[in-house]
């Protein structure tokens, strides 16, 4: 589903060139569960943004479902993001002035979906996240774990194929962090392709495939061979 070939991403800082991504080659199949680890500044977030079409590579090709997406217009990229990709961030990025449900409805608003359908779908997803009684709370009335679950509900409401999570537990205590990871893994079990960037090795090892990055390069890509108790369903 995802094919990266010879991806480079450089940033110009003053007259210095920062090589954030350096010759990245990566294939991801539908339904995979990937963790990306590595020291700070190694290019993890840059890679994730690129995968999510928020950024364009300086060179190299990115095929998404066999289509070269680096040549898409801003308009088409935004459309792809809306329908195929979900983002989860370390700092949740909920709009503070909207209720949990309104935050979840935001992608559907952008898509022009009618209010009735929106509210029905948002209710279902929030129920599934165990947040039925928090629907009309604002983010500042929710705990960190609850906020992240609202953010996950928002990221998945459009039923994307890929979920990109950049340190989703980075701002949570270990208990609620684990809850959040379990929810993401459940979604992965239903066929969602899951890519998690994390600093926490305990979370990193839970994925079936680990990628280690240093200085913009993938230095290690390892797939667990241990027999799984639950097989992920290929979608």
């Amino acid at each position, binding site marked *: 589903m995802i094919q990266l070939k010879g991806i480079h991403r450089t940033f110009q800082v003053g007259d210095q060139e920062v090589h954030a991504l350096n010759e990245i080659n990566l294939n991801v199949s539908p339904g995979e569960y990937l963790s990306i680890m590595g020291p700070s500044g190694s290019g993890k977030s840059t890679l994730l943004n690129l995968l*999510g079409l*928020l950024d364009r590579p300086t060179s190299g090709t990115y095929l998404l479902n066999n289509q070269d997406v680096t040549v898409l217009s*801003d308009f088409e990229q*935004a459309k792809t993001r809306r329908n195929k990709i979900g983002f989860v961030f370390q700092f949740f*990025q909920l*709009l503070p002035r*909207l209720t949990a449900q309104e935050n979840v409805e935001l992608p559907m*608003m*952008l898509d022009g979906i009618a209010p009735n359908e929106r509210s029905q779908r948002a209710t279902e997803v929030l129920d599934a996240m165990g947040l039925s009684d928090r629907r009309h709370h604002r983010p500042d009335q929710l705990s960190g774990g609850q906020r992240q679950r609202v953010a996950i509900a928002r990221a998945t409401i459009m039923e994307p194929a890929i979920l990109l999570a950049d340190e989703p537990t980075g701002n949570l205590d270990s208990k609620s962090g684990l809850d959040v990871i379990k929810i993401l893994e459940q979604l992965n079990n239903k066929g969602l392709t899951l890519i998690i960037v994390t600093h926490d090795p305990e979370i990193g090892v839970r994925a079936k495939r680990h990628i280690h990055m240093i200085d913009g390069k993938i230095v290690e890509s390892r797939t667990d061979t241990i027999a799984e108790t639950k097989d992920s369903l290929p979608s």
Partner: protein
Amino acid sequence: MLTRDFIHLASSSILSQRLRASLTILGIAIGIMAVVLLTSIGEGIHRFVLSEFTQFGSSIIGINPGKATTHGTSVGIFGTERPLTIDDAEALRRIPYTLSVVSLVQGNAEVEADKRQRRTTVYGVSPDFPAAFSLEVGIGKFLPKDNPQAPRAFAVLGSKLRSELFGSENPLGKKIRIGGARYRVIGSMESKGQVLGFDLDDTIYIPTNRALEMFNRDSLMEIDLVYEEGAPEKEVVEHIKRILQARHGREDFTITTQQQMLDVLGSVLNVLTFSVAALGSISLLVGGVGIFSIMTIAVQERTPEVGLLGALGAQRKQILGLFLSEAVILAAIGGLAGLVLGIGGAQLLHLLIPALPVHTPWSYVLLAEAIAVILGLVAGVMPAMRAARMDPVEALRSE
């Protein structure tokens, strides 16, 4: 994205910053209020002056001696113009549609009654004067239809002059002296009050011919011709020209129709209304700057939100629309508040100073609200463009 969602999202951010939003709205409201209030006063004065002018009806044509240039100054310096005479006025009576013809001479003179005397305005007029200018005779009669060349020495008092000279006494039949000459009072007018600053009550009316003699003039000051409402004005004017040209041998007179006067007056008054509106617009401009700065700050503060919207797949146009909606909603609310304040203020002013006429036409109200909305668009477009052009990755990193 649905329009109601744009409005919903924009209002939610306005509501989350109530104090800041109220101040911005106040800025616009004061601007719109100033515009509405000032134009209401301007328009009120406009209408007041026009109604003063048209209270005698709009089918009056004035004829003055001397040929006026376009600037209205007489070219009498050539000294060859012939005087406008009572015979000229009488000759105009045969023009079709003509209701009355008034010959007019005016001056000041001392009026002496038995006990009191007073200096006042003397009008030498023909007998159809009250009919032409819809004035009412209070007691007695107006000047009779004598031979215009040899009228009897009768006088009619304005109501104020009557009370000044005779108090509550009946003035009818009393002998008075005007400028030394003897007259008999045969009537007194109803009170008319001030018209355009002229006191029509502190006056006395005598036959035209006698006024000419009294003031030692050979020419009338003006002839006023009243024609039937709805009659073809052009035709009447042509008739007047033809008759007077035949009598004088040349065009040494000036014809002013009521319509011309109204046109000139109207354009002067329009300038007045426009200038006060321009004055109000300055405060509106300040309100616009308020929206611009508040939106610039909002975009700055909500940079991560712009990044998030990008990550959720918002189009640049949608981000532009969201911030523009905010600016427009602020401006529209400010506009409405300004309209309420402006119209309310105008009415209040009218209550406090009844002499000051105010009028707020609906077209101005709609125009003012439209201006507010456009102002919001113009002030909001730059900050909104900045938000729409942001790189989502940069925007997300900025937290």
